[in-house]
């Protein structure tokens, strides 16, 4: 087989860029695997001599002797936070998307646009009243408080995802059911919901990833280590001078693992969510 010069050039450019994308992941994996004897900043590019998971176990469990917390507790906090928040915001998004596409009313487009604005705002602009309100509701500093916050600020994106999905569901199906005498909830239950699996997949994967990766809300709403999500715990681990850099990087890999697994196994839906965030309708 003959490869033309242009073809070769294409592969060379792609390979060079691949190096740029691989480097941080390479360092993350290689550093995590090294034994403490091998850990030295001036040999950080070398491959490990043997497999060793001490960095991971220290990052996970922490060390009472050296006096730093591992990320295990926060990992579980994130799990307990992300699952209900993802499911609830997907349900809201589904209902909203259904109303905004199949039961449009006067002003519904304007309402949709106004809801959508909420996904672009810098959260700094609502964070002070948010803290005051959560304190008043006695959920400040708690995981339920954080769930509430993620559900509410997740409404815009999940509504957008489901609206874009339900636009592709033929309205005639809904109209036919209406003639047959089915009501709003009946049509949702028997016509729309059974068709919604792809919509739920996209919305839930998107919400899972963004809630897992959130830092700002976790940082400000849960200052106490006992209810902190994992991104905040990682930032504390990495900001501590007594924690060695290989433990920090192992912590980074542990934090990145769930979204990376989701991406590897459900990448198709992840990509669809990504494209919908910017290409509307």
């Amino acid at each position, binding site marked *: 087989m003959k490869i033309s010069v242009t073809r070769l050039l294409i592969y060379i450019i792609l390979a060079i860029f691949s190096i740029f994308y691989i480097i941080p992941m390479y360092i993350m994996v290689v550093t995590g695997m090294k034994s403490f004897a091998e850990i030295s900043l001036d040999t950080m590019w070398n491959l490990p001599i043997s497999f060793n998971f001490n960095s991971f176990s220290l990052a996970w469990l922490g060390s009472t002797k050296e006096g730093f917390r591992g990320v295990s507790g926060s990992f579980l906090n994130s799990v307990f936070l992300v699952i209900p928040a993802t499911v609830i915001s997907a349900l809201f998004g589904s209902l909203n998307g259904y109303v905004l596409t199949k039961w449009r009313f006067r002003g519904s487009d304007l309402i949709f646009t106004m809801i959508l604005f909420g996904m672009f705002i810098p959260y700094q602009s609502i964070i002070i009243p948010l803290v005051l309100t959560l304190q008043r509701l006695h959920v400040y500093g708690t995981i339920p408080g954080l769930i509430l916050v993620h559900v509410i*600020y997740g409404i815009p994106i999940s509504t957008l995802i489901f609206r874009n999905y339900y636009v592709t569901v033929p309205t005639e199906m809904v109209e036919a059911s209406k003639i047959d005498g089915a009501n709003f909830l009946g049509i949702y239950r028997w016509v729309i919901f059974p068709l919604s699996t792809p919509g739920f997949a996209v919305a839930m994967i998107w919400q899972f990833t963004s809630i897992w990766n959130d830092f700002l809300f976790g940082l400000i709403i849960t200052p106490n280590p006992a209810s902190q999500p994992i991104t905040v715990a990682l930032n504390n681990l990495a900001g501590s001078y007594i924690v060695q850099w290989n433990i920090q990087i192992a912590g980074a890999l542990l934090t990145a693992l769930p979204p990376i697994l989701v991406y590897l196994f459900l990448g198709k839906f992840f990509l669809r969510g990504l494209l919908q965030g910017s290409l509307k309708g």
Partner: protein
Amino acid sequence: MQIKGDKWIPILFITPSIVAVGIFVYGFISWTSFISFTKWNNVIPDYTLVGFENYRKLFANMRFQIDLHNTFVFTIIFVTSCLLIGLLLAVLIDQRIKGEDIFRNLFLLPMAVSFIVSGVIWRWLFNPGSLQLGNIGVNQLFEKIGLNFLTCGWYTDPNIGIRAVAIAAIWQFSGYTMALYLAGLRGIPLELREAAAIDGANQWKTFYYITLPFLKPITFGAIIILGHISLKIFDLVVAMTGSGPAFSSDVPALFMYDTTFRGNHFAQGASIAIILLLLVSLLIIPYLITTFRKEA
């Protein structure tokens, strides 16, 4: 056909979301604006109105001036690099190459991880080392492959500062623009390109006159999304550099956090947040209105 009485039920079901967004987005923004006009710059709330005093102080503040400049530099580098790299990679991947899936997945993978994760790793990659250690991280890599002239202090050098953070951000988001452009390229009707080829246009001409105009709306959308991300950038800076020497990697969002939650200057912090919101709104509202008009 609409069944009477059913008209209000859909509205009833969407009402909780409307109320929640109404309060938590629009209500809270108004509340923050109100705080920004008060004297509440202490632990105990003080709602005495002081007009634009907090804003006047803010714009006179050296740190805020540096922040605005940093945001501008970061936005330009980040947005243009993501667009150019994304377009280049998309065009290359679109050439029916082998291993397309592998390249595409690799370039997109950084999108899945948190800014905190990438910040921690890039902090160590851009660690310039020291006299005892010699070059480490990326500098060491440059040394090994004979590109010594590229070694530098990265984020420890005030002249680089935020630009080092931009590189990490490009690593995370250029795959996103690639995916956008690739979807766009795949959407161009084949007949259009074939027609151009029959008319004798060479590849460059086809690209310039057919492909690029076709990708215009995607570029526009990407600029809005990337632009608003760079205005809001916070997590990556916190995890990677912090404010940096002479605030060289400081950004408004970090200044807001320091002012409000470390310094207890709530009114001053609120004023930073409102300026940040205005900047984002300048970008987003025209975009939302044009999208809304197209559909109405």
